[in-house]
């Protein structure tokens, strides 16, 4: 099966540093697959995600998408750790932001907004400004904005790390629901191994400088998964020892 997103031979070095963050790094994402990337802080998880998103240009190597970008959707969409809503836009206008770069009629645009707001349960809040939203609502808006451009792969940079534990669990459940409904691939960066095991089909552990894949562990627990099972705890322990 063709991968939706493939990174080959990626070399990334920040200016002024002699050791690359990524050196001949390889990763391929299958359609509909949920990958979690874990690793200690500073190992280059977010950097890798930005390379995959096309926001950082590697010095060597290439990123391949299974089809070219077109004017009606984007192949990749990113969800940021800080939510990154524009405070001067209402919730629905924030969701519309990604659509403004596409060639859509106003009707199509509004339909897409309505659809993702329904999917993420934000319909009642659409006229609110970001400062009127809770941390969880901000993250859901970030996810809605990414979904609106109808990507094949959703790139998520520690999206739930800044919210409280209860909100995090409900965001995780919601993400899984949206993921299963939409069939999109997800690359989910987190420093929380338990979160990675609970969510993903495959957990990748990054370590070292330059970062390499220390572990690539398929998680075969049947869905829907329960939190706090011995099975999860065992996998968390196993993956944690590789960190």
């Amino acid at each position, binding site marked *: 099966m063709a991968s939706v997103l493939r990174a080959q031979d990626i070399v990334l070095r920040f200016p002024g540093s002699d050791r690359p963050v990524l050196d001949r790094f390889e990763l391929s994402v299958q359609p509909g697959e949920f990958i979690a990337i874990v690793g200690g802080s500073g190992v280059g998880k977010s950097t890798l995600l930005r390379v995959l998103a*096309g926001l950082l240009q590697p010095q060597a190597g290439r990123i391949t998408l299974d089809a070219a*970008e077109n004017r009606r959707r984007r192949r990749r969409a*990113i969800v940021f750790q800080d939510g990154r809503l*524009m*405070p001067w*836009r209402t919730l629905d206008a924030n969701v519309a*932001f990604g659509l403004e770069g596409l060639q859509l009629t106003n009707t199509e645009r509004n339909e897409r907004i309505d659809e993702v707001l329904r999917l993420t349960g934000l319909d009642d809040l659409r006229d609110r400004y970001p400062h009127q939203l809770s941390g969880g609502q901000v993250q859901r808006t970030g996810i809605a904005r990414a979904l609106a451009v109808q990507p094949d792969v959703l790139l998520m940079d520690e999206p739930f790390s800044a919210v409280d534990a209860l909100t995090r669990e409900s965001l995780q459940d919601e993400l899984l629901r949206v993921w299963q409904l939409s069939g999109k691939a997800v690359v989910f960066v987190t420093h929380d191994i338990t979160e990675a095991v609970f969510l993903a089909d495959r957990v990748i552990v990054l370590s070292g400088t330059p970062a390499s894949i220390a572990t690539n562990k398929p998680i075969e627990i049947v869905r829907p998964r329960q939190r706090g099972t011995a099975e999860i705890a065992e996998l968390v322990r196993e993956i944690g020892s590789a960190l």
Partner: protein
Amino acid sequence: MGLLGLAAFLALWKAAETLEWVRRGTMPDPFLVPSAALDELSSGRLLPAISSSLIHYAWGLGLGSILGFLVGAGAATNQLFDGLHAWLARILRPIPPLAWVVFAIAWFKVSHAGAAFVIAIGVFWVNYFATYSAVRNVDPRFHELARAFGQGAYVKLHVSVTLPAASPGIFAGLRTGVGQAWMTLIAAELLGVPGMGQEMNSAAGVGAYEAVVVYMLAISVVYSCSDWLFGRVEDRALRWRPS
């Protein structure tokens, strides 16, 4: 409370006049100010002076604001332009607007255009600096967001992200300009262009100090009105800000 302070001030003023704390005949009598106001009004001097001043004000403020904004925004977003203009700005900026009066008279004679020119110079610098630093201080994470959603091209990036993000700072500059223009206006008109400044000057020439006070108060009223009006516009444009 405020009223009490005002009454105390008037009493002190009246005392200064009756007890002749300054040279006789140079201290206006506060209680003669209302009748002097009626005088100026019925003689047909006050209203034409106000409207003439407002013409200088509108042109000077409008041109200075627009040019200051354009140059500031251009310099802050374009490296080449920034480099080219840096020295010029450093040389011209310390020159007080009133120093330009010489050229205003040489180029425009004693005319509306001359007064507007001097006002525009003061307003230009205020807006130039406010816009420049507001644009420079836009959170770069918003630029990353715009690139992530395919809107990193110059015009799109700056119209949809930089401009709204910088708008509080730009508005602060505009509002300072609203006040600064008024200050320069009177000084520019003292040189003889018809307007409130000129009326003040000629009233002082014949020792009609009550009339001078009338114009001072008129300046205060008109300024308060324009500042209030601008405040309303600003509140409306920036209503997304958390209050």
